[in-house]
């Protein structure tokens, strides 16, 4: 971890010093222990503030499109962009690199203007799980490749493998997507068994309809509709979100459970076939909702039905922007006399 952090600082400083890039997106230490925040380094000196630890949970590609746009000169609609716009550097792990692939596909970022540095990822730690074990009084954290050490908590150390975030514990693509990386830092990656990757979803699928509704209504009843999940998500870049629409108003503004449920269904649905399970939404949620379960369910269906995974093949069309004549349609109601004839 420290070696990777050192490498990031050094490369970012070099790239900024040589003016190859004008900004580098990474993380700096947050104001509380076990937190980090997005950080845009704009000079070699600022690059020294970059950190890399197991609490870098917010997806840095989230701020990439707006940062790239900030370098674009004002122009009339339809006017071409100048060719020599400044470049931006970004350090990405497996899931973030797949978000980058999707941003390239959806024209939210230009590949020519991004210097992507691939990082090996051993999984990030779940701050909530740690606080539950150590208590809230932790003042300082240090880490090695295997363990985390706490000052001030009720527990002195924890194994990193025991407090992995659930999305990291079920991650099967920790390697950055090599085809869109400018350079890759070599190192050990987390190695999970692909067989159990959808275990969290299957656990809920096994319930009956009433059980699933009880789970859904209780899980999302705590939602305060702060939209942190949406704001933390690199897939949510629409200038006007459906939640802000007034005519028609798809979701009401209050805390009505129907509105909250529909917000969460639609938010997850908009990520269908695009979500890389980076866990940014859950990390940002102040109420600790397990928002990923909905997007993970969609991931599972996209894999099952369309054999596609978000960002793994960076130049293939996204599953919902393409189709196959052989797509499964077991859900179609058939007229009674032709049942079984039609596929």
């Amino acid at each position: 971890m420290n070696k990777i952090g050192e490498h990031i600082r050094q490369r970012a400083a070099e790239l900024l010093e040589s003016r190859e890039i004008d900004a580098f997106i990474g993380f700096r230490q947050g104001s509380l222990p076990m937190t980090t925040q997005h950080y845009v380094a704009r000079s070699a000196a600022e690059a020294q503030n970059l950190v890399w630890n197991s609490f870098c949970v917010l997806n840095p590609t989230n701020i990439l499109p707006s940062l790239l746009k900030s370098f674009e000169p004002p122009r009339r609609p339809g006017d071409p962009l100048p060719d020599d716009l400044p470049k931006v550097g970004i350090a990405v792990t497996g899931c973030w690199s797949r978000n980058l692939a999707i941003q390239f596909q959806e024209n939210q970022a230009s590949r020519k203007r991004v210097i992507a540095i691939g990082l090996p990822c051993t999984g990030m730690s779940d701050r909530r799980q740690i606080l539950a074990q150590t208590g809230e009084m932790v003042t300082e954290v240090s880490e090695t490749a295997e363990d985390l050490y706490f000052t001030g908590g009720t527990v002195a150390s924890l194994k990193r493998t025991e407090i992995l975030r659930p999305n990291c514990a079920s991650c099967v693509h920790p390697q950055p997507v090599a085809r869109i990386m400018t350079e890759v830092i070599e190192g050990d990656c987390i190695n999970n068994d692909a067989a159990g990757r959808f275990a969290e979803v299957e656990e809920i699928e096994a319930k009956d309809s009433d059980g699933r509704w009880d789970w859904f209504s209780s899980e999302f009843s705590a939602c305060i509709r702060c939209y942190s999940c949406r704001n933390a998500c690199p897939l949510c870049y629409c200038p006007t979100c459906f939640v802000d629409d007034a005519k028609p108003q798809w979701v009401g503004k209050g805390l009505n459970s129907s509105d909250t449920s529909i917000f969460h269904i639609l938010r997850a649905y908009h990520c269908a076939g695009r979500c890389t399970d980076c866990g940014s939404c859950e990390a940002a949620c102040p109420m600790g909702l397990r928002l990923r379960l909905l997007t993970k369910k969609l991931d599972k269906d996209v894999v099952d039905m369309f054999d596609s995974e978000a960002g793994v093949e960076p130049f293939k069309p996204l599953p919902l922007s393409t189709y196959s004549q052989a797509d499964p349609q077991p859900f179609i109601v058939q007229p009674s006399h032709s049942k079984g004839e039609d596929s």
Partner: protein
Amino acid sequence: MTDINTEWQPKIITFLCTWCSYAGADLAGVSRYQYPPNIRVIKVPCSGRMSPNLILNALKGGADGVLVSGCHPGDCHYISGNYFARRRFGLLGNLLEFIGLEKDRVQFTWVSAAEGEQFADVISQVTESVRKLGPATRLVKNIPAEINVERACANE
């Protein structure tokens, strides 16, 4: 046959594509095929125009069922609208089932402009399956008072 005056009748919002299914519904009418009067038809340009927002809005507004019907695969007036729609419907149907909405609340079908009889048949099937489920309560924003009372009595 259920007595329309005394028994609870489901309301089913039906989105029909203008080129096939709406014409199919028209044919069912001019051919005098009988089907339950529980559907409320909304014409959409193509099944590919169907956004999950529309389906969820219908459920939120208290629809007991939602049916979306488009042209058969390969017959789309816009060549491929229904193929895109099929991918979306598959995912949305599974997601709604996953969150615990009853399976038959939201249904999808293909009806061509020549299938008046099939249209009547599909509507009968869908109406019966929704009738079995009873009044919608999940995802409904303002559940009518009489349904709430019925639910409370059923739970006791």
